[in-house]
Every structure is written in structure tokens, then in C-alpha cells.
């Protein structure tokens, strides 16, 4: 079944089973592998993308439910790796293995879109669903605070 949606600003049509999760459409059908598979049950956050601007778990989102909507994946967060969270992540050298970081960045970007200056409690609330087995949590927290500064100052690297 052909399903049309907007992906990173461009129109995208795919012909897959309507129950196929967005995650596997992105990864296997479209070859957009920046979005990661971690658990398949919305338990780890590795597959976090934005649907109409809000963070969702692509692994439990049937492709049929995104028809006509707008999806942003890590590849579309910025054209040149200059989104404030990406700048901050680079300043803090957050990633270790890096596998969970696409999801962490997408969750953090969604938090900052809604809360310009998040507190530690806001960060706990928004980010506790994103697991990192390398233990980069302290750096993630610092980077989110830094990204808020970058965003409010309007500076682009």
C-alpha cells in the first residue's frame, strides 16, 4: 500500500505493509540508518524521531499513522550539523559508542523546542526514556544546558 508523508522536508512515498513501523521503513526501505533500532517496544528511545515536531518512538509507530504528516529524523535535524543540540554535543564530546545518540539528540531537540531553558528536573523527565549503556548521561545533561544557551544566543557555529 502506497503511503505518502513528509520526511525531512521532502515528499516521500513508500509502498509497504501499512503496519510496518516507521523505524523499519526509514532503515530498510529508505536506507536512512541514522535512526536506530534498540528494543522494538518503545523502551529505550534509540529510534526517537519527530512527528509533526514532537518526539515519538519510530519502532512502535505504524507507517500508516504518519500518512500526510511530517517526520524529521536525525538526518534532517540540520543540513550541516549546526542544530544547537548538535553543536553542544560536539562541544561536550558526548558520544562514546554513539549508537543511542541519534535518539538522545532528537529527544533533546524536542525538549528545547518546548522548554527554552530546561531545569535538571525537566531534563530528567524528558530524557529518562532514552537509555545509554555507555553512561554518557552527565555529558548529555551538560550538553542540553549548553544547547539552551546556544539557542538563546542565536549563535551558529
Amino acid at each position, binding site marked *: 500500500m502506497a503511503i505518502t508523508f513528509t520526511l525531512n522536508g521532502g515528499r516521500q512515498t513508500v509502498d509497504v505493509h501499512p503496519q510496518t513501523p516507521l523505524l523499519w521503513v526509514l532503515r530498510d526501505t529508505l536506507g536512512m540508518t541514522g535512526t536506530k533500532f*534498540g528494543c522494538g517496544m518503545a523502551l529505550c528511545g534509540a529510534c526517537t524521531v519527530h512527528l509533526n515536531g514532537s518526539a515519538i518512538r519510530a519502532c512502535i509507530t505504524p507507517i500508516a499513522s504518519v500518512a500526510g504528516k511530517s517526520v524529521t529524523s536525525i538526518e534532517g535535524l540540520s543540513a550541516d550539523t549546526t542544530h544547537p543540540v548538535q553543536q553542544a554535543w560536539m562541544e561536550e564530546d558526548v558520544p562514546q559508542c554513539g549508537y543511542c545518540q541519534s535518539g538522545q539528540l532528537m529527544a533533546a531537540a524536542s525538549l528545547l523546542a518546548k522548554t527554552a531553558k530546561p531545569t535538571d528536573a525537566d531534563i530528567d523527565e524528558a530524557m529518562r526514556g532514552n537509555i545509554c549503556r555507555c*553512561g554518557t548521561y552527565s555529558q548529555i545533561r551538560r550538553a542540553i544546558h549548553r544547547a539552551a544557551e546556544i539557542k538563546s544566543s542565536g549563535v551558529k557555529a
Partner: protein
Amino acid sequence: MSVNRRDFLRTGAGLFIGLMLPESSRLAAQGRGRGGPALNPNAYIHVGTDDSVTFLITKAEMGQGTVTSLSQLLAEELDCDWKKVRTEFAPVDPALYGQQGVYGSQSIRSSWAPLRQAGAAGRAMLVEAAAQKWGVDKAQLQTDNGFVVNPASGARLSYGSLAEAASKLPVPAGVPLKDPKQFRIIGKSVKRLDTRAKVNGTAQFGLDAKVPGMVFAVVARCPVFGGKVASFDPTKAKAVPGVKTVVQVPSGVAVIGENTWAAMQGRKALEIRWDEGPVANVNSAGISKMFAEYAEQPGAVAKKSGDFEQAFAGAAKKVNAVYEAPYQSHSPMEPMNCTAVVRADSCEIWAPTQMQAGGRSAAAQLTGLKPEQVKLNTLFLGGGFGRRSSVDYLSEAVEVAKTMPGTPVKLTWSREDDMQHDLYRPASYVKFSGAVDAEGWPVALSAKVACPSFFGGRPGAVDSTAVEGIHTLEYTIPNMYVDWRKADPGIPTTFWRAVGYTQNTFFAEAFLDELAAAGGKDPVELRRKLLGNSPRLLAVLNRAAEKANWGKPAAGRHQGVAVVNNIGSFTAMVAEVSVDKGKLKVHRVVCAVDCGHIVNPAIITQQIESGIVYALSASTKGAITIDKGRVQQGNFNNYDVLRIDEMPKIDVHIVETENTPGGIGEASVPPLAPAVANAIFAATGKRLRKLPIRQEDLV
């Protein structure tokens, strides 16, 4: 990052001549390299005529920072411009690189000398080329950040402009290395080279391999360890939309689809009857009972000093205790996966593996090809932690690919597959007896260990991974006895970050606290007294105690301490906790580490934090339990791990010494659990002798 070196040679002809030997000389280099990494700059360094510098990274990157830290070793001695450094993963070539694998926190330890020598040889060749060009004595020349400089004339030539001439020179041997006092790249917190790709989605992990024409596979495996397929009916699976085919493989039944989800749906519909085998009778309570019985029996002796029996019999105060640790899953964020294509005369693999050379050998064996007919592409690992030191998932992908020659197959394990078909950190059990003298100082310690073995040698010998952390204790206790009895309940086990130390340091350091309490000693004071023969461990203990303000915790908090010497490094840790109405909170962890010469302080700090988080998950969160031969956990809902809101404040203090570098990736895992358990004792008076720490144990 995945350009093969030989491809690189071909496509780069005339452009990237650089420090690349022609093939004939390369064969000679291979001869020199046999038995260990070659002292050959060409194996590690390409200097392009455009001044680019590309380093070939021989060790897989699983987060531990090898791409960056190994580059620092090369760049320091090559004296190139750090800003121009690019990296690629090296091809698998044991003749050139020795045994390529990442385990035992060995990457810096095994690369410290050869990579610096390679960098120094490369620099010497560039200097020689400049000396010939200028017609001056090379001894007059210096290098400066990617240039050869003649201080007498002020002349400068960039490395790129000298690369072609340098490539024609012989590789010098025994080039002197820099005095560490001159280091400008080693020892500095340079930014990681892999960060950008990991924040914009372009980093290619194993699961991201893209091969034209590839199909997607999952495998149904017997839920009971050691079980086999008795029979299966593929009809319903084949009827699922998107399923292409169903085939039996040695590990189970593979379902192949046009995407991973279709294959997973097909697997759900598959009808399989399993022959579960004898492990179907195994459960965790039975394993525990088995270990307890074995610990009562004589085992293989790992350590015997003085006369434990006599000292124990005559001691002033005695303590007996039993400690236990469960199986643990590795659960890296990237589930196991591998992409493979098998042809009549070749095999190509894209894998996130800690064992590049071992993976290639396994594929050669399974396909009947020669190792050199197997091309293994190294991609980033989404975590390893020891799980990817086994190549079972790689072999499984090759087996599936063998059923469809010429078609690339991407095999993906679901999280449940990953958690229920892991090779686990062994469960373990120890029976301690210890005694203190009339002054309260420990005089006798006995540990009888029972646990599985995965690293065993000859029968009757001790598997060092079963007892390390106990028989390796550096404390001066005059009468010690450690033995081990192998207990094998049939659950597969393997290396898990920090290996035997992960449970044994908990056992030993918590029991030592019991001896301290029995003798009325402060835990830090006791350790100081017993570490007279271990100055490096004593130094980190003192640093951690000082920085944690030992003995004066914040109001309502309590402290615990532990130390470990593993992987050639020395680590001390103080945990500060509170226990409020049965709820444990780890507020702060102070860690001091001596890993000898420092390559990148920021990466060391990352790794220390990483180990603490990994150990906190295993100590206070999930455990793998067995019922009817099956793992009862399947995903992060019933095998929970530490989250951002549970993160303690971590203070890392690096105690720099001039010693040969030690490892770092596994340094901070072992002391976390005992430091926390000892702090809980300080808070509650309860001794927690079984991991993980559960809320019900604290009430």
C-alpha cells in the same frame, strides 16, 4: 570510514602516494610483522601529496575511544598537524597487524610502543626526504606540525610535498621516540575524532551496513540453551506479506524478508517443535544450590600462602559469609547483527565485532574458503562490553547467507534475541572465612569459589577469570587460601566488561569490610595498613579518600570504599549513598585511577564514568534469571538499566604516573558494587551479600 586499504591504494594511485610501499616491499613488511604488529609506518599512516594525513585504525571502536587515542599515538611521533588527521578502519590483516581484536582493555597497552614507533619512522622518512632534497645533513632538520624545517636556512617543506620522495625510502628501524616531556598531543584532551559522525546520523554501525540487493533475516532459536529444531512448518511464515523464504540453519530456523519487520512477523507465524534437551530442567534456584554444594567441596587451588587453617583456628575473631552474584547480560544498545554475502570463491562481511581477525577465521572455516578470500569490513560497534568478543552472530549470518549464494543477507537480532541468547557474565558463589588478630588486623582469609568456566585450560587447572579479584588481592594478609570448583549448569558464558573482577571484587572488598568491622577498624585505615606493598593502589586509595572527604560525608549520607588492581591499572572508589525508607540513592562516586602514562584525560574520564554507570546497572538494577532452561528477561522492561535521573555525581581524579600505560575501559567497573554495598552497611548496618541490591533487602 570503510575504504579497504587495497582499494585505497588503487583509487588513490598518483594522488595518495604518500608513505605507501609498493606491493613488493609490502610483502617484506609482512614478514617482519609476523607474530606481532609490524613496525611499519605504511601499515598505519598515509600522508597524501595534498598534505592530508590518514591513519589506519586497527582496533575496533566500541565507544572506548580507539579512533582518537590511537591517532594521538601516531600523530605525536609523526609530528603532523592534528587538525588534518583523518581515520579509516584498517583491513583485517593479521600478518601485518598481529591479532586484531579489542578485549581486556588492551588497545592502548598493545599500541603504545608500536604505533609510536610507526609514527617516528614515518617522521624520519619525511626528514630524510627533505635532507636529500635540500642536500643537507638530516641531523640539522626539525619537524613542526606537518612541516620539515631547516632552522639554519628557515626553509620549510610540508609533509605532503615530501610524501612521494619519502615513500621511496627504506623504512628505518630503531628510530628514537620522543621524551614524554615533549608530548604535545599525547596526554591532551583532544576532541574525539568520531563525534561529528555520531551526532548527525552518518556514523555507520554494523546494523547500518547497506549492500545493494540485500535481504533481511531473523532467526528463531530454541529458547532453551542447547536445544535443537525437532521439526518445523514454514507454511504460515511464508504466507506473511514481505517474507521471501524460510530456511533451516544450525542455530535454528531463519526467516528472510524484504525488510526486517516482515521477517520478524514471519518468525512469529513460524511453527517449530523444539527438542529442548537437558538444560530444560535448569533454574536459578537449582543453580544457586549447585554452587553452594560445590563450594563445600575441595577445588583447584588458586592461591595458598601461609597456613590458613592454623591461623584461623587460633585467631581472636572469626567471620564467615557467603556471597553470590547472578548471570548478567551485556545488552549493548546495538543488538547483535551481521551482514554477509557468500559466493563460490569469496565471502564479504560487514560486522560490528570486537574480534576482526577471529571473525574472518570463523567465516573462512564455515565457508571452506581461505581467510584471505574473506573480506571483513569493520564498522562502528554500538557497544561491546565483551559480548562482541564472541562471533556466534557473525557465524550465524554466514550460515544464513550460505543458503542463498550471491545474495547479501542482513541478520538482525531483536532485543529479546540479544538478551535471551547472550553469552552471560557467569553467576558465581563464594564461601569466605576470615579472621582478625587481637589488635583487629586480618590474619587469615579463605575463599572457596564455585562458578562456571568459559576460559578454562586443562582439566583440574584454575580458570583465572573465575578467581581474579580474589587471588590477585594485593593486601598483606599472611595466611590466604583460594580455591575454585567448576560448576556448569549449561548456560553459555563469556567475557563481560571487567570479567571475573566484576563479581569477585564485590565479594572480596565487601568481605574485607566485614573483617574491618570485626576488628573495629575504619575501612580506609584497614586498607592503608594492608597495602604497604602496593604503593600504586595505596596512592589512589589516599587520593580517593581525600577527594571524597572520607569520614565526613554530607548530612544523611554514608560512605563506602573499595579498590581494585586490574588491566594494569589501579583504581579506588568512594561511594556516598543514602537509604531512606528502603530506597537507595547513590549520590556521589569519587574515583581515583592510576593508569600510568595518560593518552587522553577526557577519554579516561569518560571511560571511568562509563564503567561506573555499567556497574550501577548490574549492581542495583537487572539480573538474568533462568527458569526451565530459559532466560526470564527479554527487554528493558524486565531487565532495567540506569537512567539519566538516577545518575550520581561522579568525580574522577587521574593520578598520573610514569608507568607504562594500563587499560581503562574496565578499570572502574569492579569497585563500584562493593563501594556501594559498604556504604549501605555504613548507612543501615545491613550486609548485602547478594547482587543485585534489591529494595526489599534494604527495608
